[in-house]
């Protein structure tokens, strides 16, 4: 069984699966249950300043979208930071850390945007023996209206400033949690790096309305007839999160900045994908909120099996796919593939045919006996048939060998060539 122990910016944990700052990490009871279940670490739900705690709504806090069989695909929430007294949280954190020395315990923080507030909270958490802090610059609802959370995270200058304060007033490793509700995630990441952050974590939740009540005409979750945008998370946001992780991992200005990957991680495979794109570990919330803490056991066994099968260590996985994340312009335009339908696996639903015929390239033939075959002279290998086919691996994309003639274009499959040198590109450079 592969060794999954991870060292993320000096914070050690028996595996790279942490619970993200969220309701599952709001108190000792949950966190200890999580550790018992096997989670490698937690980021304790965001603490605010001393004083009267925030209040939450007393109606629904979550909205959702579902796939087939009501499988939860996306969740949004309008919950705020912890609504428990600071002192209670600090005492519990200290107790938990003392009991669970081998687990990572990071404290999420969000206080008003002035140096004294940050200095104060940092001194308050000092003797909890927590392993680090995560700066919540991402929360998109409620707290943002008060100049915190994503209101800070959307202004790179503020991120840099606050990060600098934190590094100045604390010896703890500092992770800056980024909001996806921006146009270019590299800018806040660069700001965090300039401010001295040890790592970034992303993504926080996405501004969203998950549903509209068609009887009361209000967004949901609906509080007394009104709704507000909430933070979206869960499997549905994973592609957005992975792109942002990859952008930071491959950008010249942020390359090498440790990343804690967050956003829809549900299985070991999701975690492995985030890590291949440069995340040193992952944080999970929605999957735990959907299925309970036990899911970590599948993540542990799955990632171990994968690493064993590949005969690589955990650190070998981190960033392994980053060199292959490129810009469109560098994709090989001379690469030619054709869809192939495995007739033995085909169940004859005809979805590939409907998709191709109605919305793509009319490249699938249907016989009266419902045999579906790809017409190579029409197929552009768009992959839509693969994506709509209900049977895994029934339709595959088969690359054509170099030198073979593409029946669609009549041209031979040639060597690598991309858009930068393509004759149709007005700003093409001559091939060197």
């Amino acid at each position: 069984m592969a060794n999954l122990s991870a060292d993320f910016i000096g914070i050690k944990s028996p595996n790279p699966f942490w619970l993200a700052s969220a309701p599952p990490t709001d108190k000792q009871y949950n966190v200890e249950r999580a550790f018992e279940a096997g989670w490698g670490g937690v980021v304790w739900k965001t603490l605010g300043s001393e004083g009267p705690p925030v209040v939450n709504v007393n109606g629904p806090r979550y909205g959702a979208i579902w796939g087939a069989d009501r499988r939860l695909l996306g969740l949004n929430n309008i919950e705020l930071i912890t609504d428990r007294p600071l002192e209670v949280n600090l005492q519990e954190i200290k107790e938990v850390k003392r009991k669970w020395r081998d687990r990572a315990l990071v404290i999420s923080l969000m206080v008003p945007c002035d140096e004294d507030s940050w200095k104060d909270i940092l001194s308050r958490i000092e003797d909890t023996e927590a392993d680090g802090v995560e700066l919540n610059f991402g929360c998109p609802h409620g707290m943002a209206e008060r100049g915190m959370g994503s209101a800070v995270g959307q202004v790179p200058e503020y991120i840099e400033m606050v990060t600098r304060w934190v590094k100045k007033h604390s010896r703890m490793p500092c992770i800056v949690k980024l909001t996806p509700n921006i146009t270019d995630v590299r800018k806040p990441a660069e700001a965090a790096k300039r401010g001295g952050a040890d790592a970034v974590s992303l993504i926080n939740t996405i501004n969203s309305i998950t549903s509209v009540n068609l009887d009361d005409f209000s967004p949901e979750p609906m509080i007394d007839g009104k709704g507000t945008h909430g933070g979206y998370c869960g499997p549905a946001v994973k592609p957005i999160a992975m792109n942002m992780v990859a952008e930071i991992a491959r950008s010249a200005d942020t390359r090498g900045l440790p990343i804690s990957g967050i956003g829809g991680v549900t299985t070991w495979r999701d975690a492995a994908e985030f890590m291949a794109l440069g995340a040193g570990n992952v944080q999970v919330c929605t999957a735990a909120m959907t299925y309970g803490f036990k899911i970590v056991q599948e993540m542990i066994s799955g990632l171990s099996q994968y690493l064993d099968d590949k005969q690589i260590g955990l650190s070998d996985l981190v960033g392994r796919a980053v060199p292959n994340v490129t810009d469109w312009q560098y994709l090989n335009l001379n690469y030619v593939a054709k869809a192939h339908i495995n007739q033995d696996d085909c169940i004859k639903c005809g979805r590939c045919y409907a998709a191709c015929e109605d919305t793509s390239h009319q490249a699938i033939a249907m016989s009266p006996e419902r045999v579906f075959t790809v017409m190579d002279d029409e197929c552009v290998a768009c992959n839509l048939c693969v994506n709509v086919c209900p049977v895994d691996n029934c339709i595959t994309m088969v690359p054509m060998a170099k030198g073979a003639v593409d029946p669609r274009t009549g041209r031979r499959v040639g060597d690598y060539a991309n858009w930068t040198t393509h004759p149709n590109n007005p700003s093409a450079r001559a091939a060197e």
Partner: protein
Amino acid sequence: MSNSPLTPGIVPARLPVASYARNFADHTPPLDRHEARVAADRCYFCHDAPCITACPTSIDIPLFIRQIATGTAEAAATTIWSQNILGGMCARVCPTETLCEEACVRETAEGKPVEIGQLQRFATDTAMARGLHPFERAAPTCKRVAVVGAGPAGLSCAHRLALHGHDVVVFERRPKAGGLNEYGIASYKATGGFAQREVDWLLQIGGIEIRTGVELGRDVSLDQLKAEYDAVFLGVGLAGVNALRAEGEDKAGVRDAVDFIAELRQSEDLSNLPVGRDVVVIGGGMTAVDAAVQSKLLGAETVTIVYRRGQEKMSASGYEQDHAVQTGVRIIHNAAPVRVLGNGHAEGVEFAYTEDGPGGLNLSAETFTLKADQVFKAIGQTLSGTPAGLAVEGGKLAGHSGKVWVGGDCAAGGEDLTVTAVAEGRDAAEAIHAALTGA
């Protein structure tokens, strides 16, 4: 009553009173809303879906399932009824495992088709419970059509004709409309008086008058109908029953299975319905299974179906056969009755094993005897009382001629299924409509 399954002879009340309600309860309980959503989610919304092709009424199954999945079961019911006005009954009695569900791609993929029949029932039950009848008659055409037989074919034909604005009179020889839905199928397939509820619901279209107790050839002649109406549809079913052609067939205790089923369906109190201790059913179709299973449910000690050919030739579906076996019915294949034994009253049946040869079925010399105080004949129904002048083909009415159209079990072509009858009635109505309006 002190009867038990062991009481000899044909007697009522073999079971404690409470057992009857349990035994004859809905055989396949309906899906609730959650179950329907889960089942609907399994549909792949196939292109040119095989299930539609397999449905004799060509219901747009993927569409109605998608409508259920999106919380609009009422719209789903409209989709169903547009093609099959008796969609509620068909959802209960169709041998879906040999029709739509056999064709389902998930049967191919996983051996577990989408539960199309159950979903159809969910949709039609939901809409009927809300009192919806989503059809409106066209303006009156002043054309009058006579429909003979208020079974599935006749009712389907009548509804479609009424929809098009024609006035329809349905003549039915029995006291109630519904045909085999009311008199011919096992009670546990359509509980709660569903057949009559569906007839009442169907008649909401308006423009349909049902005259019960009127038999063609006895109370009214085809010539009369042709003279008085602009068109005539015959959906008279198969009222005759094949004879056993075995010695002793006339002994007491030997009876047509269809009569037994009809009596059972009309029985107010099943504990009053007599049944034998040892019941033998001869035949291999749905009627044989329905008679056998219900005999068992009434408390018969032993029930045996004997079919003269092999299992693969039985016209009862595999599902029905399994159901019979699970109920405790024994099925013997490849044996034919030679004689009914007994002194005045049946006491047993002697069978000979059969061999399927090139020249047909041959009786072997080897015989066996089953104890039987009640024997049901379920070896097929035949056309009876065919009005003169109608062409007959393979024992069935040949098809449209002049002012007369035919459909359902009495008509040539198609399987003898409720759903086929509905399709034929509907299509005849469209043909009549076209003929009457010159469309």
